[in-house]
């Protein structure tokens, strides 16, 4: 496994929508490298023929009857929004001007 560079951290931060400072990039590069070095121990376990476990409860496709249940009112749903307009979430610019 390759070591984690500053550029790698910058790439991860872009993917995760985190605008890190220069100081943070260097600091996290060091720390992520140490942590990934430690968690790589999982590769020591011979597990080729083992099923992966995503969840402790062996249930899937839980259904309920298809009937109307009251949900949040628009006022409730919008009550924590940073910006509201016309009973809707107002969002920052999503399209480029050009």
């Amino acid at each position, binding site marked *: *496994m390759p070591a*984690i560079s500053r550029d*790698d*951290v910058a790439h*991860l*931060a*872009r*993917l*995760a*929508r*985190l*605008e*890190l*400072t220069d100081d*943070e990039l260097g600091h*996290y590069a060091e*720390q*992520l490298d*140490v*942590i*990934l070095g*430690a*968690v*790589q*121990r*999982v*590769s*020591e*376990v011979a*597990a080729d023929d*083992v*099923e*992966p*476990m*995503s*969840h*402790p*409860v062996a*249930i899937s496709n*839980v259904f*309920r009857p298809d009937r109307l249940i009251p949900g*949040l009112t628009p006022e*409730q*749903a919008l*009550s*924590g*929004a*940073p*910006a509201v307009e016309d009973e809707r*979430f107002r*969002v*920052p*610019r*999503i399209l*480029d001007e050009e």
Partner: protein
Amino acid sequence: MTFTSTTAVDLAAGIAAGDFSAREVTTAFLDRIAETDGELNAFLAVDTPGALATADAVDAARAAGEPLGPLAGVPVAVKDVITTEGLATTCGSRILEGWVPPYDATVTANLRRAGAVIIGKTNMDEFAMGSSTENSAFGPARNPWDTNLIPGGSSGGSAVAVAARQAPLSIGTDTGGSIRQPAAMTGVVGVKPTYGGVSRYGLVALASSLDQAGPFATTVADAAALHAVMAGHDPKDSTSIDAPVPPVVAAAANGDVTGMRIGVVKQLTGEGFQREVREHFQKSLDLLAAAGAEIVEVSCPHFEYALAAYYLILPSECSSNLAKFDAIRYGLRVGDDGERSVEQVMAMTREAGFGPEVKRRIMLGTYALSSGYYDAYYGQAQKVRTLIARDFAQAFEVADVLATPTAPTTAFPIGEKVDDPLSMYLQDIATIPANLAGVPGMSLPVGLDDKGLPVGLQFMAPAMADDRLYTTGAALEAAVGWEARP
């Protein structure tokens, strides 16, 4: 009568019998919080008007001869990761500062139905990431045994609230030890129920396949009373188990371990654990044997990989779960000047709103899930998880309950490990396996170290056999005769 040193079970009985009122009890705990929380910082919000209104409603219901719920009039502090309608829920994060949820979590609704008085919301590591409560955006909670020390985490505020008698009961959440480790650090009882035993609806998710809410209390019987009220099937949580709640209250009242087989996990008995932790563990096993239990040794060879698997699975799930904090529907929004794009605003908001540990884990998870590394990291960790679950299954063929020390050390100084993530992560070495396999675990206090700080012991039981924790817990509690107070 000193309400703040009375058990929750006795408070509920006294209120039901009319020996004292819910208002008197609630007022006593509110006063206690006012006296102590300037120093302890266990609460992020204290709901004085809401608590008194609930208490008055309980008193009025009793006066009218109406039936009371099992915890009617008993104050409960709730970790600030569980939504409470009309009462701010921050998850210990700037990104949710001031957010007032428009709905109750199922756990909250269950408390209200039982007549419990929700007294306030407790401090925690941001989004439940941490083992010390130092990662709270609102300052660390302090250990009442020594306020220079951490109280454990991430449910540190809930542990402190009960240890310092600011509330007779509290609720925490446990993803890798976040109830059991702070219980051990503060000398109280803490239980992580079987995964799926308590609804996760309204619990702000850290790692959805690991998170579970559970009780803190000063006695095993009190923990059982709260557990019974919290738990149960919930159609709003598709991972909720559709089965009766295990008979935890009866088990706590029984406490007979005659003939029970208690398995000592060979891999979690000594190496790396503080001397006094090992000594009290051994002493507790002797007490259990004297009470009629059979002590057997079990081997769980894959437990040594649990920490590594956990720190791949947890960051992967949390990086996905925390994507919802996008500055659109709730919480903080930074940099929206009409010019910047939505993506720039998201990145600026998340940078400003998340603390260092949250960013660290989001990036770890983003890395572990990225193409090219997915199989080697996340995929392999999930296979190790299967092997850990198999270790448990084999161990439970020869043992009814497993026992380990809860945490490798007693409480440590605030600041000691805060910038050394790996050393902080090691705090959860004995508690993580239960989360990975979904089995229940309990920590209870069994002694004091040389500095007079509490030491915890952990029991683990098969899924949906939570009652066994309470049987062995009650037996050990009686044998230890724990009376130490901070």
